[in-house]
């Protein structure tokens, strides 16, 4: 009898710990919204550039950018010369070329508002503040975007960017 009692106690404790762990995992796991927000953070990190960036670091960032973009991306942004359907490769090469013009690039993304269409499609409204600096040039701008995302292989990828007007004339 005594032996049986000793066997049940650790088993109950184990079950209790497993239950608490499962509960914690369920309640603390990142929601789809959080995962999409994270993708925006990764996007800004991939575009950003510090003054002392080397070739290897730039290559890693462009690789990271490639992981964030879908094969085809639909772009509709005011004054952007490459609007329309673009391949991820085209955008990565454009980003590489664009980044080379500036010594530093900072990208801050604010007010991310995620709209989940279904389990594999989402739209997200956001505000991006971009500041660029080179030796004799400095500029910054704020734009509002509506990004479209699709879940591919358990990861959210950007499928489109279109400008979302904050002020409607």
């Amino acid at each position, binding site marked *: 009898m005594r032996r049986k009692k000793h066997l049940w106690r650790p088993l109950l404790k184990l079950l209790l710990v497993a239950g608490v762990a499962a509960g914690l995992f369920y309640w603390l796991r990142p929601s789809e919204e959080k995962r999409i927000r994270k993708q925006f953070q990764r996007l800004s990190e991939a575009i950003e550039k510090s003054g002392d960036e080397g070739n290897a670091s730039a290559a890693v960032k462009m690789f990271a950018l490639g992981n964030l973009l879908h094969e085809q991306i639909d772009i509709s942004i005011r004054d952007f010369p490459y609007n329309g359907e673009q391949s991820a490769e085209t955008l990565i090469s454009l980003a590489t070329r664009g980044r080379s013009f500036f010594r530093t690039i900072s990208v801050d993304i604010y*007010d991310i508002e995620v709209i989940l269409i279904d389990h594999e499609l989402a739209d997200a409204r956001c505000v991006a*503040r971009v500041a660029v600096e080179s030796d004799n040039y400095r500029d910054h701008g704020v734009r509002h975007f509506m990004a479209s995302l699709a879940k591919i292989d358990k990861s959210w990828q950007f499928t489109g960017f279109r400008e979302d007007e904050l002020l*409607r004339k």
Partner: protein
Amino acid sequence: MALRMRQLGEALRAFLLPQPNRRFWIRLGLEIVVAWVFFGKVCTLSWTQGESMLPTYGDREFLLCWQPRYWFRDPRPGEVVMLRLAGPRVMLLKRVVAVAGDSVEFRGGGLLVNGKEPDAFWASLTLCDWDLPERLVRPGHIYVVGDNRSMGIDEHEFGEIAVSRVVGGPLFH
């Protein structure tokens, strides 16, 4: 007299060079919290950038954004408001010209609200040649324009914006 001066000197020294005791740290902590709440949530320090609000507000002017102004009411036509543009730091400074339900139009440079020019000083502060067809301001929105309408219509950021973007108004000018 000499005693009083010495007492005053001691009080001044205690105020300027306080003993770092428990009371001092509690007071310092409270002061930091109060300053953080006041300057972060109630009265934000800001500087203007750009000339879209000339002649009322110039470039690089210091402003205090008083947030409680719109805690219990919506902005009214004629009021200058500060609008959240990007995060908590970047704001737009514009004048409200129309509210929800009003129609707004620019004809030959003149601002028309509900078909007539507003009888207010802010209706035409600068020369303007804008033309914009009539539009109705949607519920939950306001129509904001900068005072400097001498710049091109495409260069000037103005239009309908959600009331939820209003942060506050400049405290003084």
